[in-house]
């Protein structure tokens, strides 16, 4: 479903990714874990080309999307992304946030788009906020809406880039609940998070990233139980 082949990414002189190889099968939930600055988010952003790799290939359903003739918009509309800082459109109501892209990009009718949006608002438990502006929502509510907005495009893949890192502690749970529910629906998911308990619970696989390389790629049981590398052990000792 998603494959990275020998992906390098430089920002100026800084080498952030130094040859990433990994594969996410359809329906899998894969969590990227590692110290800050290790390149986890950059990997995620290479999957929907918010960053283009300096070298290497990214394949989505077998198609190399790093080819110059790739229609980036078509790739992106099939990949939902949830950001650390929500990035809701502040001048639009929740409903407008959720229906804009389905209307414009997927050419849905207004009824279809609003029907789908209400369905998703029910899923994230915020139907009563349909006509509110983002400025009136709590952080947890914003992130749930952001998830619903991404889902409104009916993506095949969901990317979560530290979805709870900007939240007050008491709001983390409501967001994780939604993501957990989603993980069980069979959608393909790649996740960057610092919530270790959550990662262990929802992931099919854990990738441990440090200094631009994948050092471990295993099941949560193995990774949290007996990490193979010294660096992973050191990292886990610090965060657990």
């Amino acid at each position: 479903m998603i494959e990275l082949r020998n992906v390098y990414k430089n920002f100026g002189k800084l080498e952030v990714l130094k040859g990433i190889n990994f594969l996410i099968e359809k329906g899998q939930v894969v969590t990227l874990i590692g110290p800050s600055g290790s390149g986890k988010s950059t990997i995620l952003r290479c999957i929907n080309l918010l960053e283009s790799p300096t070298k290497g290939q990214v394949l989505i359903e077998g198609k190399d999307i790093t080819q110059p003739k790739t229609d980036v918009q078509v790739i992106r509309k099939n990949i939902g992304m949830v950001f650390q800082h929500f990035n809701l459109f502040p001048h639009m109501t929740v409903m407008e946030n959720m229906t804009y892209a389905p209307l414009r990009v997927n050419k849905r009718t207004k009824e279809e788009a609003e029907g789908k949006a209400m369905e998703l608002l029910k899923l994230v438990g915020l139907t009563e906020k349909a006509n509110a502006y983002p400025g009136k929502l709590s952080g947890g509510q914003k992130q749930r809406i952001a998830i619903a907005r991404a889902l409104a495009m009916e993506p095949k893949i969901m990317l979560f880039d530290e979805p709870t890192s900007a939240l007050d502690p008491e709001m983390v749970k409501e967001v994780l609940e939604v993501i957990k529910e989603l993980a069980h629906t069979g959608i393909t998911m790649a996740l960057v998070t610092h919530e270790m308990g959550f990662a262990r619970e929802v992931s099919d696989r854990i990738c441990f990233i440090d200094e631009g390389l994948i050092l471990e790629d295993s099941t949560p049981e193995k990774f949290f139980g007996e990490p193979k590398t010294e660096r992973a052990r050191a990292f886990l000792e610090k965060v657990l």
Partner: protein
Amino acid sequence: MKLDFSCVWQYWPFLYHGAILTLKMTAICAVFGFLLGVLLSLVKISKWKPLVWFGRLYTSIFRGTPLLVQLCIVHFGLPQLLGVTFSTTQSGILTFSLNSAAYISEIFRGGIQAVDKGQYEAAQSLGIGYKDMMKDIILPQAIRHILPSLVNEAIALLKETSILSYIGAVELLRAADQITVMSFRFFEPYLVIALIYYIFVMILSAVANRLERWVNRSDRAA
């Protein structure tokens, strides 16, 4: 010293038509200047360097020379060069729109660059194209930041239309000039048009205030 406003009332139709022309020119040039300015701001933030250079050169020329000189070049200079003649209003619209675009593009560029990078990323991640993203996501947010500056620009434009009198357009100032010639009274006509300008600017500010509240409605609405 004795004030005598009777000359003003006697020639009131001059002032009335002058005021209409002043308002018309302001409105037309504000609209064209706004549209051109938005386009020019997009040119300035484009990834293609020659476009950026063009945008910068354009702005530096229009900001670096007096508006009155620009008006003279368009109205008296261009006809000689190109063999076409412009009416005073045509010259005015052309000059003021092009000039205003230079200032408005700078205002917009700043406003666009002040919009959070996350907004672009969210729009892109939803598969929204550049044009829709700018039109519906980025520019509406940029406008909120820059509305006060845009109002200032409109107010400046309104007052600057007075230099149209130099090329003979009968706007407010020229109308007052004509009254002075016919009545030999100077203080009263100029005082009255100053008051008229002032009232126009106050009305514009009031409208801008309401507009600002409307644009920011999402901050208040539940």
